[in-house]
C-alpha cells in the first residue's frame, strides 16, 4: 500500500466522524440534540477543510474553512437554538421513526454511494479522493432523514446537513469550488434559513404545531 501522509489520515478520520454523525442524526429523536449534532458535523467539516488547506497549500480553502466555521458552527446552530427557544419546542420528540429499519436502509445507501463514487474517485488526483464516497453517503443519509421526519425543524436540519455533505464532496473531489460560488452558496443557505425561520412562525400561527401532518391536505388531481 502506498504511503499515505499523516494529514491525509487525519482527513480520513474526520470523514469517518462525519459519516458517524450523519448516522447519529438519522436516529436522533430529540430536536435539541439534533441541532448539536449538526453543529458537530459543521465543526468536523471545518477542521477537515482546514487540514486539506494546510496539507495541499490551497490558500483559498482556509477561507472556506473559516466560512464553514462561522456559518455552520456559529450562526446556523445559534439561529436554530433561538428558534427552538422561541417556538418552545425544546423537548419535542419525534415519535414515529423506526430506528432499525432506517439504519438498514442507511447502510444500503452507503454501499450504493461508495459504488457511485468509485469511478469518479478513480479519476481524481486529490489526496482526499477516498472520502468522496463518504461525502455522497452523507448526502444520501440526510436525504433519507428528510424523508423519514414528520416535523418541520428536523426536516430542515436534514436539508442543511445535505448541504454539508455536498460541501464535503466539493472539497474531496476538487479542493473546493471557486470562492465566488462558495460565497453565493453560503448566502443562499443563510437567507434560506432566515426565510424558514419566518415560515415556522407562520406555520405555527396557523396550525398551533410544527407537525407536518397538517401539511398534507393538497393532493394530486383534486
Amino acid at each position, binding site marked *: 500500500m502506498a504511503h499515505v501522509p499523516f494529514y491525509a489520515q487525519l482527513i480520513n478520520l474526520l470523514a469517518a466522524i462525519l459519516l458517524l454523525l450523519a448516522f447519529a442524526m438519522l436516529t436522533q429523536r430529540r430536536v435539541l440534540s439534533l441541532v448539536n449534532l449538526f453543529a458537530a458535523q459543521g465543526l468536523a467539516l471545518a477542521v477537515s477543510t482546514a487540514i486539506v488547506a494546510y496539507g495541499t497549500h490551497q490558500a483559498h480553502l482556509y477561507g472556506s474553512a473559516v466560512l464553514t466555521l462561522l456559518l455552520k458552527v456559529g450562526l446556523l446552530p445559534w439561529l436554530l437554538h433561538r428558534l427552538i427557544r422561541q417556538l418552545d419546542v425544546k423537548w419535542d420528540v419525534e415519535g414515529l421513526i423506526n430506528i432499525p429499519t432506517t439504519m438498514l436502509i442507511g447502510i444500503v445507501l452507503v454501499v450504493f454511494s461508495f459504488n*457511485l463514487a468509485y*469511478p*469518479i474517485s478513480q*479519476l*481524481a*488526483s486529490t489526496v482526499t479522493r477516498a472520502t468522496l464516497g463518504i461525502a*455522497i453517503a452523507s*448526502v444520501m443519509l440526510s*436525504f433519507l432523514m*428528510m424523508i423519514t421526519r414528520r416535523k*418541520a425543524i428536523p*426536516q430542515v436540519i436534514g*436539508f442543511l446537513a*445535505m*448541504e454539508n455533505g*455536498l460541501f464535503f*464532496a*466539493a472539497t474531496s*473531489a*476538487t*479542493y473546493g*469550488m*471557486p*470562492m*465566488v*460560488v462558495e460565497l*453565493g*452558496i453560503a*448566502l*443562499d443557505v443563510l*437567507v*434560506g434559513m432566515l*426565510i*424558514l425561520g*419566518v*415560515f415556522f412562525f*407562520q*406555520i405555527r*400561527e*396557523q*396550525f398551533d404545531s410544527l407537525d*407536518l401532518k*397538517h*401539511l*398534507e*391536505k*393538497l393532493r*394530486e*388531481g*383534486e
Partner: protein
Amino acid sequence: MIEILAVLGLPLVGAALLAAIGEQEAAPKVNVAVSLLTFLAAAALTVRVIVDGPLLVLDRQFFVDPFNVFLVALTAFVGFTTAIFSRPYMRIEQEHGRLTAGRLRLYHSMYQLFNFTMLLALLTNNMGILWVAMEAATLATVLLVSLYRTPASLEAAWKYFILCGVGIAQALFGTILLYFAAEKLLGAGGGALLWTELNGVKGQLEPTVLSIAFVFLLVGYGTKVGLVPLHNWLPDAHAEGPTPVSAVLSGLLLNVALYAVVRCKVLVEGSLHTSFARQLMMGFGLLSVVVAALLLSRQKDVKRLFAYSSIEHMGIITFAFGMGGAVANFAGLLHMTVHSLTKSAIFFTVGHAAQKAGTQVMDDIRGLVTTSPMIGWGLILGTLAILGMPPFGVFASEFLILITAMGEQPWATPFLLGALGLAFAAVFSRIQPMVFGATTAKRLPVRPAMVPVFVHLVLVLMLGLWIPPFLADWYRQAAKLIG
C-alpha cells in the same frame, strides 16, 4: 456592458427601494416603473447584441449569445406586463381583505428580487452562479406563495421550498462534478466553471463523470422545470399563491430552469458523443406530457388546471430539445416564447375571473363573457391559443415538433398526439362553460388591466403568422448552438 449592469442593477435597486416604501400608495407604480426601466435596459441590450454580436464582458463573468438574449428580453417583458397586471389585481385583493399593506411591501420587494435572480441566471457565464441564482429564485418566491397565509398556501410553500431545495441540491452536486471534470483541463479557479470555456473544451471532458453529472443536473433543474415525476410542488404553488406569482412562475421560472438544463446538455453532448442526454430528456419530456394530460381532466381548480398545462408544455419543449437538430430546437425555442406569453396572459384573465366569482373552483365560475366581455374573450382566446389552435404561435411550434418527431422518433408521435388531444378535450370542456352560459360573477371594485393580456395574445398570434427576421435568425443561431 452598461446595458448588462442596468438589466441586473435596476431590479436589485428596485427591490431595496420597494422594501423601504412598499407600503405606500405609490409602491405599485414604482414596481411598474422599475420593471419598465428593466425592460428598456433589456431592449437596449438586445439592440446591442443585434448590432455587435455576442458579448462576453466583465472578466468573462457575463455573456450574451443568441440563445439567452431572447430569453432576457422575454423575461424582462413578461416581468413588466405582470407588474402592470398586478397593480389593479393586488388592489382588489386588498379591498377583498386578503392582504395587508405589510404583505404588499413584501410582495413588491420580492417580485423585483425574483426578476433579478431570473435575469442573473440567464446572463451569468458561470455555472456555479447559475446555480446560486436558481436557488435564490426559489427563496424569493417561497414567501410569495404563502402570501395569503392560508393553511393551503402554507402547505404549498413548504412543499415548494423542500422539494425544490432537495432538487436544487442534486443540481449542486452535478455542478461540483462538472467542475471536477473541467478543473483537469482548465486548471483550478474561477475559469473552470465558465460556460464559454467549458464549451471550448467540451470534447475532452471526461465522459463518465459528465454522464453522472448530467443525471444530477437534469434531476435538479428538472425539479424546477416541473418534469414528471418531480412536479409535485408545481400545481400547489401555482394554485395557492397570488396570481401574478403564478404568471411569473409559469411564464419565466420554468423557462429559465429549462435554459439551465439545455446549457448543461450542450456540454454533456459534446463530451459523450452518444445519445444518452437526448434520450434522458426525451424520456422525461414525454412522461411529463402524457402524465400531465391525464391529470388535466381531474382538476377542479382553474389555476391548478393551467399549472398542469404548464407541465405538459414544459414536457413538449424538453422533448423537442431532447430530439435536437435544427428544426426541433427552433421549434423548442419558439414554443418557450409563445408558451410563456400565452400562459401568463391566461393567468392574468384567470386571476380576475377568480376574483369576480370569489372562487377558483371551475364549476362555480360561469358566464364571464356577459359581465365582462374582455376577461371572457381573453380567457377563451388564450385557452384556444395554448391548446395549439391555428393561427396562434403555439400551433406553429407544436406542428414543427410533431413533424420532426414523425421523422426522427416515430414511436413517440402517438403519445404526443394522444396527449395533445386529451389536453384539448379536458381544458376546452372546462373553460367553455366558464366563459359562456348564465352568469354568477359580481363586479370588481377596480377596473382590471386587460392591455397586457391582449398585447401577449397579439404577439402570440403574430408569431404564428409571421416571425420577425431577426428573431428567426436568433432562433436559428441558437438552434445551431445547442446542437
